[in-house]
């Protein structure tokens, strides 16, 4: 045990927490605002702390507080009290644990030591994901059964039907990409994607295996219980589905678990198909070599983006009442933005002048890769939300048809093609 090891582990844990648990309120916020904007309305934009609305983000925290302080009601008809309480824990814990193996950056080398930048530094990667992602449905099934309620039971039956329809296709689509990458360790998978094919396209999974990518993304939507495959809920048919009987924080765990699962699915999609923590064309080695150039680019890029953002704030972040504390926010935000920019530019300039040293370059690379991963994760989560507010819900027999009659044959075909190509060309 030494100080560096401890600090890297702590940083990893904090990052994993931030990306999964910390992302939940942000994702709820994104979901509601994006839904609003897609439907030509604004979404939550009033809740504020001393005038700070942060575009409505405060609303999510208010909602969380509300969930925590609500009465945790349990109907008398519920006999299986233990399982009733266990169900949300399973959903939440399995969603949370899936996230733990996502690599945020390449192996970090400090001095003699090498660290894996993951919440849990293990190389099981995909197997871990499959194991825990498959587990979360037990939470839904147990919850629906223990609720002792017809609608809940129907909801959990539907989610059981859903699992048998997508898991096979998902597993088979993973097989073909495993053949391509030749590893189950997510870090080596991402590093594989750091190169280019034919010298032009980044060799991301989606370029090498578009079909597997498509199948996996579709099944990942089903896995995360998101529209168009959120058939375990279905407000119009079976009330809340499996969580009809739940209230307060027990419901909160289901709710947060859904978003963590969505974040985990996005993380896996990003890791397997969208190049993970790599910027396109800049893999770890290139970043190491050209760190100075890259930092300069950041020094130009960040203020430019901020300028753009500042213009957006000035134009759009207004409150409709003239005399309102919420109108103060924009001025403060602009000042904060300017301050952050000055800090970044000055800090980077200092680094450039003093030189980073080898360790410094490695750490800077890790920071850049974490940032890249965060941006990609956010974009993928946005896609999840975007799809949810575009597509209607599938009927569960339709999902079964899709899973067994379309996706699975395609996945098997894809395995054969991939295997043939790998064997014949030996790539």
């Amino acid at each position, binding site marked *: 045990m030494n100080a560096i090891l401890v600090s890297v582990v702590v940083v990893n844990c904090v990052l994993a927490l931030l990306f999964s648990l910390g992302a939940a309120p942000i994702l709820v916020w994104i979901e509601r605002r*994006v839904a609003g*904007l*897609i*439907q*030509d*309305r*604004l979404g939550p934009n009033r809740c504020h702390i001393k005038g700070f609305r942060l575009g409505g983000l405060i609303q999510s925290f208010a909602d969380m507080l509300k969930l925590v302080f609500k009465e945790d009601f349990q109907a008398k008809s519920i006999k299986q009290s233990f399982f009733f309480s266990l169900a949300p824990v399973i959903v939440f814990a399995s969603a949370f644990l899936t996230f733990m193996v996502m690599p945020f950056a390449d192996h970090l080398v400090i001095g003699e030591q090498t660290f894996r930048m993951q919440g849990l530094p293990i190389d099981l990667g995909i197997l871990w994901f499959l194991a825990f992602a498959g587990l979360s449905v037990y939470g839904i099934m147990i919850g629906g059964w223990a609720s002792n309620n017809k609608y809940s039971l129907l909801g959990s039956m539907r989610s059981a039907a859903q699992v048998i329809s997508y898991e096979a296709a998902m597993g088979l689509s993973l097989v073909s990409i495993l053949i391509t990458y030749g590893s189950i360790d997510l870090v080596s998978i991402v590093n594989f994607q750091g190169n280019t094919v034919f010298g032009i396209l980044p060799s991301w999974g989606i370029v090498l295996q578009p079909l597997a990518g498509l199948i996996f993304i579709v099944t990942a939507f089903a896995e995360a219980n998101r529209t168009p495959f959120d058939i375990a809920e279905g407000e119009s048919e079976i009330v809340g589905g499996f969580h009809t009987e739940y209230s307060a924080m027990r419901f909160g765990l289901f709710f947060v678990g859904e978003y963590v699962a969505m974040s985990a699915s996005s993380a896996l999609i990003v890791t397997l198909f969208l190049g993970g923590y790599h910027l396109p064309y800049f893999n770890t080695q290139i970043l190491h070599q050209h760190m100075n150039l890259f930092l300069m680019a950041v020094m130009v890029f960040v203020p430019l983006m901020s300028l753009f953002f500042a213009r*957006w704030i000035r*134009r*759009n972040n207004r*409150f*409709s*009442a003239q005399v309102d504390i919420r109108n103060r926010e924009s001025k403060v935000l602009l000042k904060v933005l300017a301050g952050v920019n000055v800090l970044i530019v000055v800090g980077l300039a200092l680094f450039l002048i003093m030189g980073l040293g080898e360790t410094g370059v490695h750490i800077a690379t890790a920071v850049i890769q974490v940032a890249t991963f965060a941006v990609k994760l956010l974009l993928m989560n946005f896609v999840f939300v*975007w*799809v949810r*507010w*575009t*597509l209607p819900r599938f009927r569960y027999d339709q999902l079964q048809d899709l899973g067994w009659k379309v996706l699975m044959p395609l996945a098997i075909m894809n395995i054969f093609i991939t295997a043939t190509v790998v064997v014949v060309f030996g790539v």
Partner: protein
Amino acid sequence: MGIKIVKREGGSLKDRLYIPAIFGGMKTTLRHFITNISDTSKVKTFSYPEVQPSDITSRYRGIHRLTKREDGSIRCVACFMCATACPAECIFIEAKEREDGVDEKMPEIFTIDVLECVFCGGCVEACPCDAIRMDTGIFSFVALKREDFVLTKERLLSHEAKKETL
């Protein structure tokens, strides 16, 4: 009359692939998202308590009012037609003799419990003297106590017709 064969949609390969249609839909939603986020003033909704609706017409059934005669006295003759017509039975009238010679009767008490009222407009239709109307344009009526929702005669007389803005 020949037989008209309606072509069934959705049979072509492109339709059955779903993907083009899905991307088409996603393009539409993204377009809405981008236009709205790049300029939030383009959003069709308005921020309600700060911005009040401007499209309430004179035919809108809002909170009731009791109309007045030319001399400013109450028009109602306490005939109980409105109370009889009211499906919610939320109009309570107590009649008294009218002393000033304008008419024979007038209400001593005339209250409407707007918590019970279903805003059907039956009272307005029933009144033979055009003494009760719902053209105040008041669409949001809030109070802290239940009792405050029981509108008295004075309160009803104090409501004015909505000024025509359109």
